[in-house]
């Protein structure tokens, strides 16, 4: 079963925001943003811009009809700056004009006098100055001091992981169309229908029932469209005030420079092992580079906080984390949502510890892998752990031991090139860590011709959630797929929907769809038994689009059943709701059951490093992933391949450079994401056999984010190769760009 949108994608007929024919009289909006990282706005003169040819209006914070606020978790982010700015790229004014060209020309006529103030760009410095979002979090489990005293090996040091630009192909954009009676319809490239619906109503100062947010599909999201209300509310505000349609679309370089990224982190780690290599104690401090507003950063930090132990049993642990308030654009969600960063630290620390012990990292990891009955630091006693099975499968499919021997032999024979291996086990908690978000609803309508329309809060962005929902609906109703269509995500049909993120899109919305279809099916079966005068109502069934009675073949087809039921005044529409059961978490004690279940995986990455030039190739990636009983193996395979390569990009080539004043220097010509030639020739994915999962729809498992963590394997493999040359320097930060690899090998001292 494929994502049926592909049939349109290949023809270029699938509609993204900019492909919706512009309504008559559509205006174009652009944002005037801060050129200063931190400062006081002393004066702002938009009069020349307002008078420029083709300009319909220039708005400042004074013109916001409702609440000038788009903060996602905390109300700390004005839509348009009031009297101060906190980062370069912060919106100050909104220019609306007859054409995009006219709007861009007018931008240059805005005069802002901003007095620069001291800005902070280092997360550690921000933390030291007490510049943090929310509270510092800390949890201590077990007897840390006692455990470290018993350790034979202690690996200790500092680490860092870098930012990552989403590089979704469709940049942030929305089209707003005013309606009668002060209503408005907004088409947006957005992952959070419920939250953005709420933001729109607040900014416009009207009740939510006057706002309709409609989302057909996204040209990529990856988390980057989860908390980004600015680019949706700004055109809506203009449309609302001018009573004309307004479109806003960021240019690529604006998007790179002013929107959030995956958070960079800095770490202090201390990992203690006994003589046998058993982890006894782990201390880890997380400094999250959050940016100027809280955005969604505290939630991302929370997820890192819950995943710092990776796939390992760690009896004594202290973890702390702070969301550091720095003067860069607020960072936000990115596929993995803090888990890759949390997992990275323990993986790197284990590499360090393995060196101290004189064993291979995979040997050490194998000994400490989670198993049934282990308790996670936040108090969850694990069952159904597939970490070991994934690892063993990988050992077999990849011939891990022989691969290690081959790499060692190669490295003995070669001076100018070196090989390296990285093995990563993945344990990824599934559910929103924020318990309240674990809810979804579905609306299923059966029409008299038998066709079925499903609406949910899930947003399609290429991950195939609509295809999975379609499968669930067809399977539950007992009809062929062609009867079912998944409609747009629309706040008038599905209110208050949680974002499509945290890998939960299919889990939550699929389950709500299943519930709605079960109710419809029960109602139709009851009707069919009556209609067909069956003696035994329990013997009536719907299979492959036909009603069957007992052992007899089909007696009535699906469309006749629908028509007859409607004529008999049976309700053919159903709304259902799903809330993931048994979730709870106490932020005071840092204990609870935040996740419904865990997705497991294991992977091997092999690289070849050119020691002369610092360049490298990833030669092989082999992944074993636990997807439960997959709803669609084709879709899951695509999600795994895409996530792994995206993770590899984060670990290797993707980097953002900032000027000393906080400007983002890297534009589209400098921000490199993996291309077709970067992807290793050997790329193998094995779906774990005989895995089932009672906690998600049709026994499947979430797949969107967990495989991204395998990307860390590229980092580990490169470090493995680098360390085979020299070990007299600390382990390098992530990503290992060719520059970092080169300087590690050739510079006298790191960073000099």
């Amino acid at each position, binding site marked *: 079963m494929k994502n049926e*949108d592909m049939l349109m994608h290949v023809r*270029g007929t699938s509609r993204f925001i900019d492909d919706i024919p512009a309504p008559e009289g559509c205006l174009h909006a652009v944002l005037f943003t801060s050129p200063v990282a931190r400062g006081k706005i002393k004066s702002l003169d938009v009069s020349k811009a307002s008078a420029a040819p083709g300009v319909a209006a220039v708005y400042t914070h004074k013109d916001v009809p409702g609440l000038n606020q788009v903060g996602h978790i905390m109300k700390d982010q004005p839509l348009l700056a009031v009297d101060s700015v906190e980062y370069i790229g912060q919106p100050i004014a909104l220019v609306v004009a007859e054409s995009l060209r006219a709007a861009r020309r007018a931008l240059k006529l805005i005069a802002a006098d901003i007095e620069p103030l001291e800005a902070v760009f280092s997360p550690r410095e921000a933390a030291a100055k007490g510049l943090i979002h929310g509270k510092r979090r800390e949890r201590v489990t077990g007897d840390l001091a006692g455990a470290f005293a018993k350790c034979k090996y202690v690996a200790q040091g500092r680490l860092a992981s870098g930012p990552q630009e989403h590089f979704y*192909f469709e940049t942030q954009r929305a089209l707003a169309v005013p309606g009668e009676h002060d209503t408005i319809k907004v088409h947006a490239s957005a992952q959070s229908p419920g939250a953005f619906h709420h933001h729109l109503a607040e900014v416009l100062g009207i009740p939510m029932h006057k706002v309709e947010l409609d989302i057909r599909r996204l040209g990529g999201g990856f988390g980057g469209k989860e908390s980004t209300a600015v680019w949706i509310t700004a055109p809506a505000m203009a449309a609302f005030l001018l009573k004309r349609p307004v479109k806003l679309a960021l240019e690529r370089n604006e998007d790179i420079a002013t929107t959030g990224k995956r958070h960079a982190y800095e770490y202090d780690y201390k990992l203690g092992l006994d003589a046998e290599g058993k982890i006894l104690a782990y201390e880890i401090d997380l400094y999250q580079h959050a940016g100027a507003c809280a955005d969604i950063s505290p939630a991302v930090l929370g997820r890192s906080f819950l995943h710092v132990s990776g796939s390992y049993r760690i009896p004594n642990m202290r973890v702390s984390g702070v969301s550091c308030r720095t003067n860069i654009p607020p960072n936000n969600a990115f596929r993995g949502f803090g888990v890759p960063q949390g997992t990275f630290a323990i993986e790197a620390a284990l590499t360090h510890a393995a060196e101290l012990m004189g064993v291979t990292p995979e040997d050490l990891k194998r000994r400490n892998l989670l198993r049934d009955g282990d308790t996670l630091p936040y108090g969850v006693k694990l069952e159904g752990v597939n970490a070991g099975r994934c690892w063993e499968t990988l050992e077999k499919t990849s011939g891990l031991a022989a691969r290690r021997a081959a790499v060692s032999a190669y490295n003995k024979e070669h001076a100018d090139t070196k090989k390296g291996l990285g093995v990563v086990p993945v344990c990824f908690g599934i559910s929103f860590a924020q318990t309240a978000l674990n809810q979804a609803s579905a609306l299923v309508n059966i029409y008299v011709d038998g066709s079925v329309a499903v609406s949910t809060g899930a947003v399609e962005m290429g991950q*195939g959630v609509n295809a999975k929902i379609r499968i669930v609906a067809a399977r539950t109703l007992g009809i062929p797929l062609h009867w079912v269509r998944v409609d747009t995500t629309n706040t008038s049909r599905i209110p208050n929907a949680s974002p499509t993120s945290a890998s939960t899109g299919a889990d939550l919305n699929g389950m709500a769809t299943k519930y709605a279809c079960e109710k419809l099916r029960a109602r139709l079966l009851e009707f069919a038994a009556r209609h067909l005068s069956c003696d035994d109502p329990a013997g009536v069934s719907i299979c492959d689009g036909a009603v069957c009675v007992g052992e007899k073949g089909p007696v009535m087809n699906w469309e006749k059943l629908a028509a007859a039921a409607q004529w008999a005044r049976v309700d053919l529409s159903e709304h259902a709701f799903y809330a993931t059961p048994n979730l709870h978490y106490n932020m005071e004690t840092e204990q609870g059951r935040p996740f419904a279940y865990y997705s497991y995986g294991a992977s091997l990455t092999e690289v070849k490093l050119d020691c002369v030039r610092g360049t490298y190739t990833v030669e092989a990636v082999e992944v074993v992933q636990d997807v439960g009983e997959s709803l669609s193996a084709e879709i899951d395979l695509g999600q795994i391949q895409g996530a*792994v390569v995206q993770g590899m990009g984060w670990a290797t080539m993707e980097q953002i450079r900032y000027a000393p004043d906080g400007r983002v220097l890297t534009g589209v*010509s400098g921000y490199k994401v993996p291309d077709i030639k970067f992807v290793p020739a050997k790329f193998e994915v094995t779906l774990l056999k005989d895995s089932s999962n009672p906690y998600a729809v049709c026994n499947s498992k979430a797949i969107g984010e967990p495989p991204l963590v395998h990307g860390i394997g590229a980092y580990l493999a490169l470090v493995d190769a680098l360390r085979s040359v020299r070990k007299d320097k600390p382990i390098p930060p992530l990503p290992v760009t060719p*520059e970092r690899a080169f300087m590690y090998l050739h510079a006298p001292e790191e960073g000099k």
Partner: protein
Amino acid sequence: MTSFILNEQLVRTEEHPGMVVLEFVRDVKCLSGTKEACREGECGACTVLVGSRQPDGSVAYKACASCLLPLGDVDGCHVVTVEGLSGADLTLVQQLIVEHSASQCGFCTPGIVLSLTAFALGDKKLSYEGAVNALDGNICRCTGYVAIRNAARALCESLARIDAAPAKRLGEIVSAGIVPAYFKEIPARLAQLKAEPAATGKDAVLVAGGTDLFVQKPEQLMESELCFLSKRSDLDYVTADWNFLRVGGAVTIEEFRLSEPVRKYFPALEGDFLLHSSAILRNKATLAGNIVNASPIGDATIILLALDARLVITGAGSQREVPLAKFYLGYKKTDLACGELVSEIVIPLLPKGARYHFEKVSNRATLDIAAVNSAVRVTTAPDGVITDLRLSAGGVGAVPLLLNLDSFKGRKVDAATIEALAKAAESEAKPIDDIRGSAAYKKLLLGQLVCAHFTRAAAAGEAV
């Protein structure tokens, strides 16, 4: 007036010839299948096919980034967007992408369809490697490319039996379902089109490909008179005589790379220029334009400096020759006066005993600008003594550098000489910290690349 065939339709438009095809098809023609995702030729989402009439009357198709493709450059051509490929049925390329699930969010997919279609239409060997090369400018952020590669492999397998004889090829391609039947009518239809001659105004901005120009100042170009060198068929040649390779000022990087004289006299350049840029840019960018763009890190410039290229510069009624090494006067400043153009690039064939080698390191191995690049042409006597040495370096100064290494003439190429050369190169390098890397990195890297010139070129026996 610009006239061309867009898909099946004849278009005559008075839009400014500097309007890019992407804007024209989306905003004027309401064909929204061509996507805009970067507007700098970096992603491939806006790829279209441009078919141009060949001297023999046939039409040759190339995939181009439509965001950097001005209307004036497609005058008299056949432009194909994704809407021009499929009727009721999907084309073979489209079918294979669906079959292999090689599309997720779908935003990059039309571009991938067109790049693979261009490959099927134009590649002589139809090898899997060629298909991957054809896709080197198409970025996909969703699939991880594995499925795209599988679709490309399947395409090559499907086309294995295509008769590549030029006369039969188009018919075979149509029968294989790569392009619709109307493509067969295109050569005759294009023959009827009268393209405008190149503008000759004194102040006209020369567009020699435009893949840098349309990134740098698209709005300005919309307001200028433009002279498209693609219309100057008199400048479209690559020839070789006893001593020199001569490249006309309108020759694209891809034409140059694959030309017979280059393959014969400088076989290494075919691969070296593959690193220059992606297929969708190489099909448009010209060698002369790349030189005039004066990037201190341009691969073409660095290679041609080592090869001792000279430029023939033509002005109104005048012509002069300038060694490339004397062409750059400062950062982005050249010895080219207003009204002059680089009409020919003259590259001396390798002297007896000379070897050429090129090194480039970039953050991403392909389709990326170098952190440092360097080329060498070293001539040695039979006893191994250096008789001539030209070594260039990019990314380490305001202009592409030709290093002054005359003192090495007369020395034997041995470990000590190589080390001294690397040190000498490092000391001449004056790099700055920028998005391509730190100054310290570039300096050290240049030293390593200089060593690699000799060790790698010697070891691999890459005498050319």
